[in-house]
């Protein structure tokens, strides 16, 4: 394997893992051929390491408190996007009244984009934090889910 390809594959792992194993792992990769097969193997292993870290990622007890998990960008973003989506529905209802429209307007498309974004980040958050701080992550997910439900209820009853 070429050095550039090996470096690229090492780069898939989180920094603490790279600091501990990066050099020796890169040396091993240089001795391998069949790039595609190795890519699948390494990508799977790197994803596993990111989900369930073996080094340098032991989250300190303080870091697993609900407040800290709640402040993570991947927790704040779906909350912010869901709130923005809810605001769009409420603003639409406030301006145009409670009307059941057949055609989707700009507000509806904006709402779909915001909810889609929130769901995507929410899935990322769940994948990253559920294995590390299950209770705290679950609490965040319940809050985001409640906001999502509020969104769907608002869309159902107000538009």
């Amino acid at each position: 394997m070429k050095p550039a390809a090996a470096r690229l594959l090492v780069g898939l792992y989180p920094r603490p893992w790279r600091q501990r194993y990066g050099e020796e792992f890169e040396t091993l990769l240089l001795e391998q051929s069949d790039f595609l097969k190795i890519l699948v193997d390494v990508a799977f292993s790197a994803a596993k390491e990111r989900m369930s870290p073996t080094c340098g990622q032991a989250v300190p007890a303080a870091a697993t408190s609900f407040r800290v998990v709640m402040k993570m960008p991947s927790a704040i973003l779906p909350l912010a996007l869901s709130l923005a989506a809810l605001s769009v529905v409420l603003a639409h209802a406030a301006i145009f009244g409670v009307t059941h429209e057949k055609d989707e307007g700009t507000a509806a498309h904006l709402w779909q984009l915001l909810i889609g974004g929130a769901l995507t980040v929410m899935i990322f958050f769940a994948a990253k934090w559920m294995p590390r701080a299950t209770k705290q992550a679950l609490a965040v997910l319940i809050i985001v889910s409640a906001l999502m439900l509020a969104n769907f209820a608002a869309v159902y009853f107000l538009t």
Partner: protein
Amino acid sequence: MGIEQFSDPPLLVLTSLAGGPKHGHAMIEDIVWLCGNRLGPGTLYGAISRLEQQGLIEPLPPEDRRQPYRLTAAGEHALRAKLNTLKHVTRSGLKRLEAL
């Protein structure tokens, strides 16, 4: 992956290191010799990092850019226990097959 292909990377790494300290490439070749299964480098290092985290293997001073590993006492104990269980399963399984 067929059922006949043995795949338990941590056990394979421990078994390989029971034969003496080895670096990654040597482990891959030894495991091919042991069971015909060629571990990918990601799978191998996934097992190595978890075994090291559990204190079952430990690194030796690097040779060039290669990093050899060896079994720890806890690793030897864990491997012995696992192999004894496997031996019991193998014996019982073969006995049951004979009775068929």
